[in-house]
């Protein structure tokens, strides 16, 4: 592994109870890069995430992590013991009881007002942002986000993706995230790994979106919508939802 590589998996396969969930997957995450794994339901995206996290071992192939790698993980959903009295502050400080880190992370993810609320009473979108704040608590080198925008409306989704890009820019952490579609995530990612149990195609998001294997998987209609999407937006929204002019290369409309 080179100094820039945080995670390197080669020929990864996972078979559980005779069912092959993944085969021959290569994955590489480098410092400061954003890699998005996309694929249809049942493609093995979460299995790949669990491999990266070290929660399961590969049946075939090898996976290496940089020594001392700190990972912040945001799961797809959170199950908590119903009977445990636990508020957001207590939940966030489970992995790191540092008040400066807490203030910074709740401000960044917009959950400062939720700190004293019981975890079990949060809405889906609030839970997602609290989970992101928790993932940031240990100052991770690598953020692993499994369907981070799940349960969030479209405006909130692009806002969250911009936040992820900003976190990468400001803190220099690499990001490995899972998405089930390429549309909104395109602007937020450096590389895309499109899988359907095996790697269908990978590379720059523009290249992947035109790749025959991608079109095969997601259909040409999807690709058309994608084209429409990139050509009809002449502005962006900032974190507060206000309209700002997009940068030059995106202004087509």
């Amino acid at each position: 592994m080179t100094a820039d590589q945080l995670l390197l998996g080669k020929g990864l396969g996972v078979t559980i109870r005779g069912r092959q969930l993944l085969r021959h997957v290569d994955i590489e995450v480098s410092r400061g890069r954003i890699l998005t794994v996309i694929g249809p339901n049942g493609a093995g995206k979460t299995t790949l995430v669990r491999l990266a996290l070290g929660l399961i071992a590969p049946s075939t192939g090898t996976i290496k992590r940089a020594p001392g790698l700190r990972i912040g993980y945001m799961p797809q959903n959170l199950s908590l013991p119903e009977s445990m009295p636990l508020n957001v502050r207590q939940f966030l400080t489970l992995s790191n009881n540092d008040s400066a880190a807490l203030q910074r992370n709740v401000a960044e993810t917009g959950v400062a007002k939720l700190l004293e609320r019981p975890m079990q009473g949060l809405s889906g979108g609030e839970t997602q942002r609290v989970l992101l704040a928790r993932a940031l608590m240990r100052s991770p080198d690598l953020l692993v986000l499994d369907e981070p925008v799940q349960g969030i409306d479209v405006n909130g989704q692009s806002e969250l993706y911009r936040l992820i890009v900003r976190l990468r820019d400001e803190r220099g952490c690499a990001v490995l995230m899972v998405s089930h579609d390429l549309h909104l995530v395109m602007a937020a990612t450096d590389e895309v790994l499109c899988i359907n149990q095996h790697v269908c195609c990978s590379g720059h998001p523009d290249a992947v979106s035109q790749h025959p294997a991608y079109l095969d998987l997601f259909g040409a209609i999807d690709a058309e919508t994608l084209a429409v999407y990139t050509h009809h937006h002449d502005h962006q929204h900032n974190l507060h939802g206000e309209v700002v002019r997009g940068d030059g290369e995106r202004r087509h409309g």
Partner: protein
Amino acid sequence: MDDFMLRALAAGLGLSLVSGPLGVFVVWQRMAYFGDTLAHSALLGIALGLLFEVNLQLSVLVLALFIAVGLLALQHRSRLASDTLLGILAHGSLAIGLVAISFRDDVRVDLLAYLFGDILAVGDADVLWIWGGGLLCLLIMAAIWRRLLNLSVNAELAAVDGVQTTGIKFIFMLLVALVIAVAMKIVGVLLITALLIIPAAAAQRFSRSPEQMALIATMVGTVAVMIGLFGSLLLDTPAGPSIVTAATILFLLSQLRPAR
């Protein structure tokens, strides 16, 4: 106050001190049936202890350890649900224990005393066992508290944080086994789990943090032990069931407080 009452009180209070912090985790991790299984297997431990003429607490502890390891192994290998496996271990060991005890017909075995506890049988050595074992439990709990809490909130997040989840969980199982081994004489094997889960359940509505819930559970347990023991003395009722009756009444009263 009679000597046996003082000893019983000392034993009961030592027990409630440790059952609070352990009990809340049993409730959070839904391990009530696991506690029951260890308690049922304690009877086999007693039988083996009698057959081989070794210290009963020690044989109960060793057997509980085997049951805990056996359960972890079965959970890894078997496709049967955990409650099925626990049922097999609980009733299997209970039945084998009863069969084994019957082989020893030269020793008079007061089965009821082990099933429901016998306050009169609590000697100085038992009080020492309870306080020694209890303090050891509390020390270990304090050492693993944060990791165990993290694991109980969400095992996957804890594992990504670097918590050795299997190891911590196993230590916790051993602590539950230790409490059962030292507590069986006072409450009896059939009712031990009650002393773990009822005070914790009663504390739930009054707590704003995990630590507070453990503390309140300890207080509820202490009150239940005192009411139960004095009630048992006054009304001449069996001690273990009296303590659990007191705890159950406290739990029912706690439910009068509206849920948050």
